């Protein structure tokens, strides 16, 4: 056995090399848990800092703006025409309201809202089934958004283009509230509990 081999043998059994292993482990864990999510998501601002709480006070309930149409479909995020009903003229001096009027109402341009709960196109979601038949509250899925004063920063997954809210803020995928994640597993969890239909076509199109 050559001297070099002896040295190698010594090195192999010395604790120093374990250090390299540990360093590698630590670095990769740091990358995986902390740097990766920062790189994965880009941060986008909503076009207008909308306050749900003010509007909820004024409108009274969620259904005033987010309503069902006669054909059973759900209106989702209101269109500009809903905004115009109250904001044709400025009601105060809030710069966000001025932005709304100048940038969108006057040129009659729809507001390009970034939708936190937007699901991939293959997902069929029936608000009627969940709200009317399932009697779920809005917050079960949408959380406390109705009471918020400001819209949060929209974090967009650079690969998929969907909001971070779908996967959940926790990169590990852990959740503590029902509204923390909106992945298929979260839908399935509730469907399982309630024994509602399990066929794929219930939620997919």
């Amino acid at each position, binding site marked *: 056995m050559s001297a070099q081999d002896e040295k190698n043998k010594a090195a*192999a*059994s010395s604790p120093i090399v374990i250090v390299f292993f540990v360093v590698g482990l630590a670095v990769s864990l740091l990358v995986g848990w902390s740097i990766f999510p920062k790189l994965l998501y880009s941060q986008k601002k909503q076009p207008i800092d909308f306050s749900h709480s003010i509007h909820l006070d004024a409108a009274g309930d969620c259904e005033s703006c987010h309503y069902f149409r006669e054909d059973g479909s759900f209106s989702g995020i209101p269109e500009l025409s809903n905004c115009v009903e109250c904001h044709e003229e400025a009601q105060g001096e809030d710069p966000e309201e001025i932005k709304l009027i100048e940038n969108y109402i006057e040129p009659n341009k729809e507001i390009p809202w970034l939708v936190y709960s937007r699901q991939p196109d293959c997902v069929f979601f029936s608000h009627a089934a969940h709200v009317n038949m399932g009697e779920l509250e809005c917050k079960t899925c949408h959380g406390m958004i109705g009471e918020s004063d400001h819209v949060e920063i929209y974090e967009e997954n650079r690969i998929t283009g969907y909001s971070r809210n779908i996967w959940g803020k926790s990169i590990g995928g852990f959740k503590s509230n029902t509204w923390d994640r909106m992945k*298929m*597993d979260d839908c*399935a*969890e509730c*469907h*399982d509990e309630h024994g509602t239909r399990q066929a794929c076509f219930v939620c997919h199109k």
Partner: protein
Amino acid sequence: MFPFSFEWHWDIGHMVFHGALWYALSILGMGLGYAAIKSFIDLKKGGHH
């Protein structure tokens, strides 16, 4: 593949299939683990055969 996947059902099909699969995989895992650990121990003991 895993019991926490929502498609999982605790029925005969899943239990037999995945039972066999995980059984085989664990044997492989344990075998490899055994060989690895044994090698480190052998190394510590030194000696060559």
